């Protein structure tokens, strides 16, 4: 994976590479709407790994579903979705996520769109990766104001799934489900442990020496830019253009022509 000459890369490429390595072996990776970086990572996992997982990009033509909007959830309930991505307006140190509001539910100060499928998928998908680019005390809080979905559950609650990690623009945490606590795994290039502590609203574990998040290898960057970018452009043309400089046939144009 190591390249002889370190190459220039963008933050999005680093994050996608980190997520791709977290995905590991999988049979089916599902990615929610408006999630271009996780989508990049999922496609990269498919193109680079041995397991060749199915990748479902929700809200696009890139799914195999034929049973309507409910099939994703039924599929996950059957144990047929291995990896999913969730985020939150707030995420706390116990892995609780809030997609509803800041303040009191009856009189909120800020309203987010809503919980989407989180109050189900967080429980049933074995490997949920939390992804929140903005790493600040505003987003990573001591305690969320509304629990859309909890990070853990009592032992008698049927729960095969839950969080495995949290990735931000500054670092990677993994999650200890038994202790319901994050642990700092690595700090992205250009960031520091002190900075992570300063901008994180919750307590977390960390090793004595925190490694640097490895840069994407030259092979990985080639694969992302050459193979993944054109696929991604079918769903996220603007992102593919901005990050990878890829300008190709837009799906909308094709639709309009047909």
């Amino acid at each position, binding site marked *: 994976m190591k390249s002889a000459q370190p190459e220039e890369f963008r933050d999005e490429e680093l994050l996608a590479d980190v997520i791709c390595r977290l995905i590991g072996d999988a049979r089916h990776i599902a990615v929610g709407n408006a999630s271009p970086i996780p989508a990049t990572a999922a496609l990269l996992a498919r193109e680079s790994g041995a397991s060749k997982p199915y990748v479902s990009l929700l809200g696009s033509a890139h799914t195999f579903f034929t*049973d309507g909007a409910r099939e994703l959830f039924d599929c996950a309930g059957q144990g047929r979705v291995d990896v999913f991505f969730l985020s939150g307006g707030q995420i706390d140190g116990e892995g609780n996520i809030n997609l509803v509001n800041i303040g009191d539910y009856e009189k909120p100060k800020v*309203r987010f769109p809503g919980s*989407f*499928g989180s*109050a189900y998928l967080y*429980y049933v998908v074995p490997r949920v990766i939390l992804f929140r680019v903005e790493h600040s005390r505003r987003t990573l809080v001591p305690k969320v104001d509304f629990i*859309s979905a909890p990070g853990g559950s009592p032992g008698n609650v049927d729960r095969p799934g839950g969080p495995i990690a949290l990735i931000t623009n500054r670092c990677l945490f993994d999650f200890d489900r038994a202790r319901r606590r994050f642990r700092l795994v690595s700090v992205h290039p250009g960031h520091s442990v002190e900075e992570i502590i300063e901008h994180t609203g919750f307590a977390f574990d960390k090793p004595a020496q925190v490694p640097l998040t490895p840069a994407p290898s030259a092979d990985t960057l080639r694969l992302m830019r050459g193979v993944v970018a054109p696929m991604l452009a079918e769903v996220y043309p603007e992102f593919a253009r901005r990050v990878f400089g890829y300008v190709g046939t837009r799906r909308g144009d094709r639709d309009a022509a047909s």
Partner: protein
Amino acid sequence: MARITRSLEEAIAPIGDGCMLAVPRETSGVAMAATRALVRRGIKRLHLVALPTSTLQADLLIGAGCIGTLETSAVSLGEFGPAPRFTAAILDGAIRMRDATCPALHAQFQAAEKGVPFMPLRGLIGSDLLTQRTDWKVVDNPFGDNDPIVLLPALKPDVALFHAPLADRDGNVYIGKERELVTMAHAAQRTIVTVEEVHDTNLLRDPLFVAGTLPGFYVEAVAVERCGAWPLPLPDRYGIDAAHIAEYARLAATPEGFAQYLDRYVYEKRAA
């Protein structure tokens, strides 16, 4: 049984003030032309159930003062950002919100479809959604041992409203793979559909269409409305009008801008 109406207004006449109206998500065929017609008519106090989420449709109806209660899992403008009128209405306490999660709504429609009073669903325990939704109950799995599980009541809307590519003269409607539209129609008392065009032969007799067809038996009225989902997409027909949604997001950021949007695109009927 289903009939092809002479006008859109005639088809949507059964949708009255206070109606519980079920509508689909953005990518499944949203009846936007019909939604604009409801706004023009000045409909009030709708209980809108968006299965399982909504975008422009809910935001437009909220901004125009048509909604009393909103029941859904999320409202946003997707990649165009937050839904401004939804957000403002929640902060002002102008609508009653019943927050849900996507598979819960699917399960509630499926309960109604099967004619049973409730459906169980995993997850949810420990979520504040369960605290807010006093109509959702935790029971011990009668087939298990100390296994709590959530029961969700059947949801029976007065009317289901959506847009589809085709209907035939018997009111059979081609919905393709958007199967939740069938569930919506099964669950609702009445179903009203707008379509792009009328198909000349019977869809139920065509093996290529039949598996993706909602029988006219479940359909009250069909109106033909070209580009009836515009500016939202219709599967396999047309994509989203991104420039228009961006314009909406910009205008709807303020009440004055939203009023301009209504004047420009809703009260002035758009030439197709």
